[in-house]
């Protein structure tokens, strides 16, 4: 018989046995028993400054490494501060496990000090969650939580543990197998469906590979490359899939959707077949759903059966792990192609004409001030294809998606589904912990940066030398853009005055970082290079940019993708036969 240990020791042993090497968190009353064995554990614990930072750091770590990210917090406010990152991870299918302390079992339900029903609160925003009041159940709950988080469609799992369960004595028993009657993700596709998909692909005259973040989750970029080159079809990568397919590749048309390239948006609209891989027909991609890709048949491959037919009917559903699906699909397509090879010449002529006539671009501000797009473009070019970029949410996020070339998976992190302002700094922190040898840039806005910059203290104290580019247009830029376009330039509450207050350079220095400022085009390269040269501390660069720059192209919310505009009130000039 093994010796009795506390529930807290059992928890830490379970985390170690599960393979956790790092976690982000803050102690507090209810979780305090767990922090005592954490003190002795080989698991690296990074003490953050706000639980939201712990959650997004876990996400950044998971997105970069493909492993499960871990965050830990106390009951009540500690736990509720994790709500945003949990919802964020749920929307973007990121495998994280959150461990929270709960008030002691007998106090649950009495409105005790720092009590919040976090299991109830997070039910709709986690893949699954637990409330553990019996210490014997801790190892099994931890093992299940990690298994559920990383398998199937990945997602966040929360394990809430009552304080007395952490204090009571128990015997540590790590489960050798899990008994999850209701959880058996399908990983291998139905081969009949694979055959049908291959047939559709080989009959299509206007195919498009519509690639979502699932390809990155499934580590299936190499297989995607094989399929794309085999069928020679245009590829579009959604905001969550940037990096899944190299931007430099001749088949790549860029990002579709509200701020996608004209070529990507139009190719989807005019396609006769969408080969949808790990994407979910999100409204930001489809625009008005009823007018989206009306002539296209749909092959929809996803590990989550609930995505099939949710927004768009799938002619051929392929349920399973994308890597397995592609491994089955590629040889099937090969043998079909031997019988019938479609001629895509005229399709490529059309696609290339959109690509050539409407490349992504931007105008330099007339007043000589700094162009935000130029800054972001140069950061990408100078940092190179191995650098990792984490963006906040807003204009800078769209520009970072548009003007940085992503060549490799897991080099682009952002909050795509939930659109969480403040994601960038903590996510970059987690990314740098997961990939310490790669350059990690947070491309942030001045609004976003003011939501979570406190984690720079964490970075400075824990040797996590991230770089932050604050694209400072002294406003909530995307909201301002909508006010410009749709609210008669009535700039209600979007002016942040952040070129005056705060002084980001001084703020960075106060937090133990190097602070820099750049205000002119001539200084951009040398500022970026100076930032690149610093590797012993975090760096924050305040790029003072033109405040009226806008994100183009744009499909206004709720309208058809056919109504894409390349600049204000400027629809692309189509040839008559295209309309």
């Amino acid at each position: 018989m093994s010796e009795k240990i506390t529930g807290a020791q059992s928890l830490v042993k379970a985390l170690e046995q599960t393979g956790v090497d790092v976690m982000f968190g803050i102690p507090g009353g209810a979780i305090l028993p767990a922090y005592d064995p954490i003190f002795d554990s080989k698991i690296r614990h990074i003490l953050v400054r706000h639980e939201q930072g712990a959650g997004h750091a876990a996400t950044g770590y998971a997105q970069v490494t493909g492993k499960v990210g871990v965050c830990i917090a106390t009951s009540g406010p500690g736990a509720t501060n994790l709500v945003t990152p949990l919802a964020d991870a749920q929307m973007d299918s990121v495998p994280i496990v959150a461990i929270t302390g709960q008030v002691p079992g007998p106090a649950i339900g009495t409105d005790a000090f720092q009590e919040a029903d976090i299991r109830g609160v997070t039910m709709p925003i986690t893949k699954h969650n637990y409330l553990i009041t019996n210490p014997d159940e801790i190892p099994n709950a931890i093992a299940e939580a990690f298994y559920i988080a990383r398998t199937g469609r990945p997602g966040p799992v929360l394990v809430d543990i009552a304080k007395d369960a952490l204090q009571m004595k128990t015997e540590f028993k790590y489960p050798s197998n899990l008994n999850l009657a209701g959880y058996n993700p399908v990983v291998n596709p139905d081969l009949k469906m694979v055959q049908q998909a291959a047939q559709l692909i080989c009959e299509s005259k206007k195919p498009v590979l519509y690639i979502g973040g699932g390809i990155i989750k499934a580590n299936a970029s190499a297989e995607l490359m094989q399929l794309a080159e085999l069928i020679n079809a245009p590829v579009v990568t959604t905001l969550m899939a940037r990096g899944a397919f190299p931007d430099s590749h001749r088949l790549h048309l860029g990002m579709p959707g509200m701020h996608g390239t004209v070529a990507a948006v139009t190719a989807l609209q005019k396609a006769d077949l969408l080969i949808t891989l790990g994407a979910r027909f999100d409204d930001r991609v489809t625009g008005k759903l009823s007018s989206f890709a009306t002539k296209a048949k749909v092959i929809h491959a996803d590990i989550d059966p609930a995505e099939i037919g949710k927004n768009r009917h799938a002619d051929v559903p392929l349920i399973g792990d994308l890597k397995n699906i592609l491994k089955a699909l590629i040889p099937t397509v090969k043998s079909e192609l031997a019988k019938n090879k479609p001629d895509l010449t005229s399709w490529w002529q059309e696609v290339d004409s959109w690509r050539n006539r409407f490349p992504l671009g931007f105008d330099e501000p007339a007043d000589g001030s700094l162009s935000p797009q130029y800054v972001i473009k140069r950061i990408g070019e100078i940092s190179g294809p191995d650098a990792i970029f984490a963006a906040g949410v807003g204009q800078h996020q769209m520009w970072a998606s548009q003007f940085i070339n992503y060549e490799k998976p897991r080099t682009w992190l952002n909050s795509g589904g939930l659109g969480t302002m403040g994601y960038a700094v903590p996510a970059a922190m987690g990314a740098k912990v997961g990939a310490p040898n790669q350059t990690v840039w947070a491309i942030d806005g001045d609004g976003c940066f003011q939501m979570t910059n406190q984690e720079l203290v964490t970075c400075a104290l824990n040797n996590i030398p991230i770089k932050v580019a604050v694209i400072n247009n002294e406003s909530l830029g995307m909201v301002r853009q909508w006010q410009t376009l749709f609210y008669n330039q009535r700039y209600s509450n979007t002016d942040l005055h952040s070129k005056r207050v705060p002084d980001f350079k001084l703020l960075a220095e106060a937090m133990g970082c190097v602070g820099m400022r750049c205000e002119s085009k001539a200084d951009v390269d040398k500022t970026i290079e100076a930032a690149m040269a610093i590797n012993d501390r975090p760096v924050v660069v305040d790029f003072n940019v033109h405040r009226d720059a806008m994100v183009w192209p744009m499909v206004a919310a709720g309208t058809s993708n056919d109504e894409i505009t390349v600049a204000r009130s400027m629809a692309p000039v189509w040839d008559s036969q295209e309309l």
Partner: protein
Amino acid sequence: MAIHTLAVLVENSPGVLARVASLFSRRGYNIDSLAVGPTENPKVSRMTIVLNLEGHALDQVNAQLFKLVNVIGISEMKPAESLQRELLLVKVANTPKSVELSKKFGAKFIEANGVLEVEAVGERAEIEKFLTELKAVGIKELVQSGVVAMEKGATTLADRTLTTMGTANQSNQDNSTADYQN
């Protein structure tokens, strides 16, 4: 109006009813009735959910429901292929008419303190018809159990859905779960 009756096997664990209810509420699926109770297996509870699906595909509801980790199996109970029953308890005025109606619909009744306490079991449509006629007499209080349903014949829902209930592991268990995947 598209009414569907689902039989759902769930793990008998705390919070599972809240998970199901929260999912239906969040996704805007209308529940007409929901009845839940124990089964022959103490680890498993069974829900019978009557849904009024307007603008939602049943497949989508099944798929979303099945994503809940505690949901083990789902099967649609089609009216022709299942037994569907609802329990009605109702207090009405004790009149010859109410006694006559109760007898007509095969309901049990007790006369007590000037009221008639009536208990009826039947298919939903019968119960509704009975209620409509009782309204004329004057209903003082009523309570309904919600529909419970069971497939006719030798096949059990557990046969359909629990055959592979056991360990989760790395290997793929094809067709392991709900009807909708087949």
